[in-house]
């Protein structure tokens, strides 16, 4: 389990992080969401040891995270970086070795990843000769080559075509299924909703909401959506505050069982459920609060 505890960081007069905490269990995919400049990248850089925090700590499996353990993490920074004039295969294997693999292990793992990412034919090409999308795949391979225990990915989906998004999403799910805690940040909230077990929302250096996707959705639920197969207008009959949304009635602040009874009496109930906000709506709500 990876825990980020009470991180604080200032750049000059700017407060970048003001007591940020989040955690990821083994096998859990955590979406890290926030507006530009909210502190996502700073928090992830600190977790990866690239930046030092003013205070706070990173705890891995109950003990402060050390350099040796961190070498078994996989990291994709928001600013993508590869050696432009180095061959794809050599480059991925080099990072495998830097992460502590033997040369043979690194080469084998590189070949496997290139196969998975449909890049086998480009193994001897310089990275600068690849398309941007393929460079992104190489970037992913660099963060996965050493079979990382933990994945920390900053905007892994940005700039990817839909096929690459699927490849990336599958890769993340696979790592999580293998027991790795996965934390990634993204502005593509539909992806976050689809892939993540839990979501952490950060705004201006503070965590403003966090929890499992279901918890967050349940917390924001307000309206009961009812659809009844009847010509009759039930607006006056239903209790609480009632609004029409096309054919549907949106009911707020009423006993749901009573609403169901009245609706059922009027006709066949074809839809009866609380509206669940999307993660995007929750995010907008949380950020504008």
């Amino acid at each position, binding site marked *: 389990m990876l825990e980020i505890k009470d991180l604080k960081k200032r750049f000059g007069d700017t407060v970048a992080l003001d007591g940020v905490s989040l955690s990821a269990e083994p096998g859990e995919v955590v979406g890290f969401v926030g507006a530009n400049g909210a502190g996502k990248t700073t928090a992830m*850089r600190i977790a*990866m*040891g*690239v*930046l*030092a925090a003013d205070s706070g700590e990173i705890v891995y499996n109950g003990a402060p995270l050390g*350099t*040796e353990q*961190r*070498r078994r*993490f996989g*990291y*994709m*920074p928001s*600013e*993508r*970086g*590869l*050696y*432009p*004039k*180095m061959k794809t295969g*050599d480059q991925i294997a*080099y*990072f495998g*070795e*830097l*992460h*502590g693999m033997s040369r043979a292990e690194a080469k084998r793992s590189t070949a496997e990843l290139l196969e998975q990412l449909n890049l086998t034919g480009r193994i001897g090409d310089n990275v600068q000769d690849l398309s941007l999308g393929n460079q992104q795949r190489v970037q992913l391979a*660099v*963060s996965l080559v050493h079979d990382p225990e933990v994945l920390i990915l900053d905007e892994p989906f940005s700039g990817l075509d839909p096929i690459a998004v699927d490849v990336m999403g599958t890769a993340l799910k696979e790592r999580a299924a293998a027991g790795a805690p996965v934390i990634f940040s993204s502005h593509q909230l539909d992806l976050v909703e689809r892939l993540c077990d839990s979501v952490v929302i950060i705004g201006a250096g503070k965590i403003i909401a966090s929890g499992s996707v279901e918890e967050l959705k349940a917390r924001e639920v307000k309206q009961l959506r009812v659809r009844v197969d009847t010509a009759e207008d039930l607006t006056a009959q239903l209790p609480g505050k009632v609004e029409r949304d096309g054919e549907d009635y949106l009911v707020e602040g009423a006993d749901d069982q009573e609403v169901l009874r009245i609706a059922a009496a009027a006709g066949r109930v074809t839809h009866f459920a609380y509206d669940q906000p999307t993660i995007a709506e929750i995010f907008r709500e949380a950020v504008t609060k």
Partner: protein
Amino acid sequence: MSDQNAEMSRMRGLMLVAGREIRVRGLSRANVISLIVTVVIVGILAALPAIIGDDGPTEVGLAGANAPAMEAQLEAVGDYETTVYDDADGAEQAVADGEVEAAVADGKLYSEDGVDAELQAVLDSAWQAASVEANLAAAGLTPEESQQALATESLESVTLSEGGVNSTLDYFAGLIISIVMFMMLMTPVQYIAMGVVEEKSSRIVEILLTSLKPWQLLGGKVIGLGVISLINLVAMVAVGLGVAAGTGRLDSLPDGMASAALSSIGWWLVAFALFGTLAGGVGSLVSRQEDAGSVLTPLIMSLTLSYLGAIFLLNAPTSTFAQILSIVPPFSGITMPTRMAITDVPAWEIALALGLLAAAAVGALALGATLYKRSVLYTGSRLKLTEALKRAA
């Protein structure tokens, strides 16, 4: 993880970085081509004395009364082939036809467009000796008596000043050492700075630093480029000496050449540690390749000044300025080995220069590593040196 394992992984990280530099830079087309070109040039230069020396003896035409006497004189000097013509016209025609390089007849020296100083001197003295012999014969002396009268011993050379230029060959040895030292510092220093900027501008440094410490990244780069430079140097020296040995000219190298070349490698190592780490440090101040030139200027200036200093020193090796120049770092890195090749340097001066250079290198290591550590993750406009030093790591 045990201390020993941690130590091993530290060294492994350093060596992995160095290994990548050697593979990617050393085997790059640019480096391989430049190495081949340099080696070919060195090979040709080394073969040149043999090629020039093989054009045989100088051919001289003779005619007139003094011809037999001059023939004897020139034979005694050696390396001259003489042809005696019937008259001055025949000798002149031989020069015009290119059969001989020069001809002497009836007190005149015929040549196509003048002769070099050495040939002129030899012919002059042969002519004078032959004329004196003829005059003595005219005065009634027998050939034996005239030879006795002409017998002289050549001058014995006595040098009063110690530490003067040993010989022309030493001058060239010094010149070659200064040029090679300059090139061997200039090229890798630029590559180090470019490599640091490349990692910074491509942002790859952020991934690297999750598994490497800044000192491993900088140190590996400096070591890698140092090894490439050494390989290039060894290739040049091996080809140069190989060709010299193959053409049988190895014996004509100055006595101290081998030891001067060896000690130069030692000087190079210290100077490279100084310039290499500084280059890495200043390289990390900028984020774009276009800005690399401006931060490198002070380093390139000091290297160029060191080289110009070495050239000055070659022409005035015993001057006080040369003495100071060869002791003060960073100039001593190039100037001292140059001075050592051309003249005898007191041991204490060598020790002082080496000590100061090593101290400067240690300072440069600390400064370069600090600059690098503090600014390598900073992106944006160029950092000022003072800003970088004030920044927290």
